[in-house]
C-alpha cells in the first residue's frame, strides 16, 4: 500500500508520545509499504517555530515531506480561547478556533492533502488535538485513519469532535480506555478500529546493565519524562517531600523508606525545589535511561492524563514495578490488566503503596515480572503490527463501501 502518516512535528530527536508512536509505527509499516511522512518544519510544540528545512528528505525507509508553519502560536490568544471553551462557554466556532490557535497552522500541508491524498491508499493522522488532524481528516475522507491519542481532558468534550470522529474510516487506539472515550464522543457507531498500544523491543539484558551503576543514590524511585505540572509533577513533588518528612520522623522506620531518593530524568518546564532526597538529571541519553530503569526500585507515573504510558511499558520491559496515578483511567487500566503496578488517588494511598513497594522487595519484584509478562503478551512489534495490518485491510473495505454510497447519492 501507499501510505501517508500526518503528524504535527517529526524527527528522531523529538520526544513527545504521539510523535514517537508515529515514528515507530511508520518505521515498521515501511518494512511492507511505501510510507510518506507529512509534517511541518516545527520542532517545538509550544511555539511551532520553523526549524527544519521545508521540502522532501529521507529518513531510513521513510520519505519525509515538511511544510512551513505560517504563524507561531500566540500563547496569550491560545490561553484566552482555552479558558473560554474549557469553561463550556464556547460555541462550535470557538472550538474550531481553539484548534486553529493550538496549531500548527500549515496551510501548505492541508493544501497538499487536498490535492494529493488520492495518490495514497490510506492516510494515517496522529493526535486529534492538533490542527493537522482536525482540519486534515475532513480533506481525505474515505482514506483517513485516525490515531487519536485521546486523553480524558477537557478537549475531548468539545462538541465539534462528534463530526470529526465520524469522518475517519478507521481508528487505531492505544488502550481500551481511549476507545471508550472516543466512542462516547462520536456521532454514531465508530468505524472499524483496533486497540494496538505500541510495540517494544526486548530490553537489553539486565545482567549487562546491572554491572554499570547509574551514578545516583540508591534505593531510588524514578520519574522519567517531561517535568511539568500537567504531568502531575507538582503533586508528586509535594507528596514525595511529605513522605520524606513522615518517614524520617517515624518510630522504628525502615531503612529503605528513610533513605529513598526520587530521581527525575527529563527536561523541566517548572521550577523544581532543592531537596536532599531529590536528584534532577535533566534530559538523559538512551544508555543512561536504560541504566536508570535497570537499577530503580520502582517507576512513578503521576500524570492525570494519558492515552498510553509508553514509559510504563518501558519500565515493565525492565521488570520494574510501578506506582501510577489512579485518577487516570488509562494508567489504572494498564495497572489492573498487567498486575504490574499499584495506584494512588491521594497522599495516604501514595505513601502506603510506596512503603509497600519499598519494604516488600519480593512482591515488588513479582509485580515487575508480571509487567514484563504483560508486555511480552501484548506489546511486541509483530503483534502490534499484525493488528494494524488487519485494520488497514478492514478499513479498505469500509472506505470502498462509503465511496459507493456517496456515488449513489442520498
Amino acid at each position, binding site marked *: 500500500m501507499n501510505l501517508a502518516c500526518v503528524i504535527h512535528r517529526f524527527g528522531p530527536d523529538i520526544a513527545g508520545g504521539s510523535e514517537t508512536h508515529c515514528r515507530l509505527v511508520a518505521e515498521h509499516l515501511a518494512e511492507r509499504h511505501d510510507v510518506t511522512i507529512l509534517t511541518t518544519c516545527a520542532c517545538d510544540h509550544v511555539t511551532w517555530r520553523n526549524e527544519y528545512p521545508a521540502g522532501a528528505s529521507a529518513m531510513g525507509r521513510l520519505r519525509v515531506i515538511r511544510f512551513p508553519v505560517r504563524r507561531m502560536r500566540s500563547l496569550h490568544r491560545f490561553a484566552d480561547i482555552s479558558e473560554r471553551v474549557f469553561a463550556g462557554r464556547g460555541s462550535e466556532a470557538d472550538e474550531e478556533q481553539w484548534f486553529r490557535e493550538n496549531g500548527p497552522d500549515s496551510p501548505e500541508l492541508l493544501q497538499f492533502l487536498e490535492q494529493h491524498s488520492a495518490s495514497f491508499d490510506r492516510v494515517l493522522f496522529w493526535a486529534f488535538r492538533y490542527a493537522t488532524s482536525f482540519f486534515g481528516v475532513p480533506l481525505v475522507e474515505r482514506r483517513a485513519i485516525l490515531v487519536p491519542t485521546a486523553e480524558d481532558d477537557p478537549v475531548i468534550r468539545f462538541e465539534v469532535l462528534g463530526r470529526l470522529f465520524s469522518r475517519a474510516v478507521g481508528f487505531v487506539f492505544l488502550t481500551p480506555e481511549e476507545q471508550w472515550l472516543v466512542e462516547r464522543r462520536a456521532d454514531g457507531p465508530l468505524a472499524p478500529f483496533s486497540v494496538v498500544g505500541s510495540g517494544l523491543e526486548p530490553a537489553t539484558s539486565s545482567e549487562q546493565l546491572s554491572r554499570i551503576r547509574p551514578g545516583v543514590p540508591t534505593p531510588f524511585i524514578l520519574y522519567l519524562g517531561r517535568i511539568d505540572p500537567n504531568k502531575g509533577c507538582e503533586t508528586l513533588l509535594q507528596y514525595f517531600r511529605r513522605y520524606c518528612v513522615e518517614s524520617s520522623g517515624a518510630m522504628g522506620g525502615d531503612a529503605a523508606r528513610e533513605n529513598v531518593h526520587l530521581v527525575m530524568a527529563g527536561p523541566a518546564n517548572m521550577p523544581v525545589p532543592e531537596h536532599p532526597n531529590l536528584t534532577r538529571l535533566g534530559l538523559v541519553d538512551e544508555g543512561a535511561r536504560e541504566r536508570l530503569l535497570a537499577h530503580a526500585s520502582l517507576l512513578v507515573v503521576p500524570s492525570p492524563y494519558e492515552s498510553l504510558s509508553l514509559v510504563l511499558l518501558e519500565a515493565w520491559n525492565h521488570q520494574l514495578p510501578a506506582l501510577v496515578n489512579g485518577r487516570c483511567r488509562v494508567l489504572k487500566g494498564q495497572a489492573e490488566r498487567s498486575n504490574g503496578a499499584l495506584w494512588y488517588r491521594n497522599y495516604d494511598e501514595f505513601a502506603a503503596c510506596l512503603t509497600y513497594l519499598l519494604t516488600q522487595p519480593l*512482591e515488588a519484584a513479582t509485580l515487575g515480572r508480571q509487567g514484563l509478562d504483560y508486555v511480552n503478551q501484548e506489546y511486541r512489534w509483530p503483534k502490534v503490527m499484525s493488528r494494524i495490518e488487519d485494520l488497514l485491510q478492514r478499513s479498505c473495505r469500509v472506505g470502498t463501501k462509503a465511496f459507493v454510497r456517496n456515488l449513489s447519492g442520498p
Partner: protein
Amino acid sequence: MSDRAAPGDPVAVDRLMREIEDQVRRDRRTRLLARGGAPEYRDPAIYAAVEEVLRRALDERDHDTLLLPAMLGGEEEWGLRTHLELASHRTLLGPLILFVKRRVLLPATRWLYEYSLENFRRQQRVNRLLVAFIEELAIENARLRKAVATLQGPGNAESVPPVAESSGQQAP
C-alpha cells in the same frame, strides 16, 4: 548487580490494592477520631458508608454531566467566569480603548490575571465537586426512601413522608 529481589509467587493487584485501601481507610478514621472528628465515625460501618458516598461522587461521577447545573440552565448566570472578555460600548473611541486594554493594560497586568486564574480554576473544581457530592447525597436519599417504601409493603409505597416532614420540619 541489580538492586532488585527475585520474583516470588504471583500477586493479584486488585486484591493487594483492596488490602492497602482498607488499611488506609482504617488509619484515616483513627487519625480523624484522634483529632476530634465526628463521633459517629466511632462506628466503622457508618464511617465506611460515608466514605463510600463521598468516593462515588469523587471518582465515579462524570462531573460534567450533573443534574443541578442542568436544572440551573446555562452557566452564564452562576458559573465562575474565568476567561477575560475585553469590550467597549463606545462607537468611536471603542477600538482605541480596546487597543490600549489589549496591548498595554493586559500585558502589564498579565501576571495578576494568571495568578487569579489559577485560583479561580481551583475554586471551580471545588464547586463542581461540591455539586457532585450534593447530587450523590440526593441519590442516596432517594434510594433509601425507595428501600423504606419497599419495606413498608406495596400498599404503603407512596406513603413515605417527604424528608422535610420526617425530619420534623413541618410546614406551618
